[in-house]
């Protein structure tokens, strides 16, 4: 599905001209050829070796170690004495019996889904808007979005905390100036929903640009004639979107949804900076909950069990993503 014009012929074209194990290009003849072929046979594996070493040592091994840790009791005492005590599935039983774990997990999933829905909706609207704009205005919108996208997450989180500050925040000031309400000392962080609103807004603000720009790139690949034909057939804006844009951009939508879901499930630094789970743990999400279990109260075994569950949840979202990727770009893999 070549929906985005990325100007990349990509591997499928390269594959067509390559033979197994041989370098691209004409093979030499005679003994030299046999020698080349064998060297060529191993060469790709040598090239991959360093990356495999890094990925196995620094991703696969920690992942394995995470799983084994989840079957150990590893509190402060064992940590200091460097004891290894196997406890079977006790950590999992403990975590699954913990009411807060279920609340936090459910909250994490709902939070991610709301953020994804908001991001996709706003991103689509912005992309459609960009299509209708002249060059100058389109550049203006792109520059604004690039600023938001480029801002480091920790900077962004700090700024949002400042925008919504109780005493001197510009948002409270704007509300007080523009509406009859007096929000001169309105706190956004002493109850759950306003705090979640600020957190979600910060996440979505940074997530929209990627979605909008990708969708816009997709939109520009749809020929104008299709829309003209649709207009002649009497299709309104909504009908055009639903009957033309949506099916044509379906693969992009699917990939953006699954990618956003994976990203929003693991929100950590914004949460750490903006609310740190407060007030009274009401905005705690799974990653911070796990972090607190480990580095806060030194119950590393239980924290590892929670982290394993987190990995499983992410993998379910990932499986959906990979399946889409394979279906969309089968020839490339």
């Amino acid at each position, binding site marked *: 599905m070549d929906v985005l014009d990325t100007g990349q012929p990509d591997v499928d074209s390269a594959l067509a001209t390559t033979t197994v194990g041989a370098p691209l290009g004409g093979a030499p003849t005679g003994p030299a050829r046999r020698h080349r072929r064998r060297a060529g046979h191993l060469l790709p594996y040598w090239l991959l070796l360093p990356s495999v070493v890094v990925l196995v040592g620094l991703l696969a091994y920690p992942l394995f170690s995470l799983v084994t840790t989840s079957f150990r009791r590893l509190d402060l005492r064992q940590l200091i004495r460097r004891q290894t005590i196997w406890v079977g599935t006790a950590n999992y039983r403990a975590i699954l019996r913990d009411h807060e774990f279920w609340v936090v997990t459910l909250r994490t999933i709902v939070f991610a889904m709301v953020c994804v829905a908001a991001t996709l909706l706003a991103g689509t609207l912005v992309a459609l808007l960009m299509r209708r704009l002249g060059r100058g205005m389109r550049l203006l919108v792109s520059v604004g979005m690039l600023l938001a996208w*480029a801002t480091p997450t*920790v900077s962004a989180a700090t700024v949002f905390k400042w925008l919504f500050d109780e005493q001197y925040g510009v948002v409270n000031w704007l509300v007080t100036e523009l509406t009859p309400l007096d929000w001169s000392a309105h706190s956004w962080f002493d109850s759950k929903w306003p705090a979640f609103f600020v957190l979600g807004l910060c996440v979505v603000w940074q997530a929209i640009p990627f979605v909008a720009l990708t969708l816009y790139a997709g939109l520009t690949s749809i020929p104008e004639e299709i829309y003209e034909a649709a207009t002649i057939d009497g299709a309104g804006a909504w009908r055009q979107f639903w009957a033309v844009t949506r099916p044509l951009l379906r693969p992009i939508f699917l990939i953006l949804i699954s990618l956003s879901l994976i990203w929003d499930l693991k929100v950590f630094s914004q949460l750490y900076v903006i609310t740190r789970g407060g007030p009274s743990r009401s905005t705690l999400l799974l990653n911070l909950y796990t972090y607190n279990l480990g580095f806060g109260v030194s119950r590393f075994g239980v924290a590892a069990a929670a982290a394993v569950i987190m990995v499983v949840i992410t993998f379910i979202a990932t499986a959906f993503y990979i399946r889409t990727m394979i279906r969309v770009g089968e020839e490339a893999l």
Partner: protein
Amino acid sequence: MTAMRRPKRRKRGAVAANIAAVLVFLFFAFPVYWMASTAFKPAAQIRTFNIKLFPTALTLDHFRDAFRTANFWTFLRNSLIVSLSTTVLSVLVALLAATALARFRFRGRRTYLIMILVVQMVPLEALVIPMYLVLRDADLLNVLPVLVATYMAFVLPFTIWTLRGFVATLPVDLEEAAMVDGASRLGAFWRITFPLMAPGLVATGVFAFIQAWNEFILALTLMEQQNQTLPVWLGTFKTATGVDWGGLMAGSTIFAIPVVAFFLVVQGRMTSGLAAGAVKG
């Protein structure tokens, strides 16, 4: 032709679209503007509810304060060392892998590609626990090169994926021609393909740099408080007298500037690279 049939409606639509565009721009740009303008405002204009959207006086006090916070220069140095090392090492390793993936077809290639996709999704926040425990047992906490190694774990998959796309766009014919003319495969690659790949390498490298520069949770857990990187300094920035917003915004601005600058430079290439990764598989 729509324009001819309904000129008025079209015009009103364009005006509405332009207004919407300005609002969208403000929504995205205002927080960034507010960060920078607060950083340059005198404290008296920050600690007041009589807010002025445009500062009437400018000061560099907050930047000076930020530079003077304990260990700031250590944090900056650490951030630079870690980000640059991660970038160089990741791009080198990824270049090898990308060449293999784009230039050869071999058994296990598809599996490797799927693995690269999968490992990108492993939440680092979950791996931080075993990483901490393993490094603690090996007495390797608070060591910068080790932090670099852990950063490669999450920078590398994306770097490989993106570079593979770049290598695949380069014509093989030129390399073959050089080989016919007697150049070795390595020589052909080095003299023909490598220069052509430079823009791709730069774009990928910048992206790796940004990711490493922004990383938060690994530095937070694997480094000691006096030996941190900038994002952790920023994320845990507090003063004795409550929140110093001027200093915080100055810190955020300092931290954001290199990323925003880099980002704007390579943006075009990066969006197409990301889009290629996202759409073309």
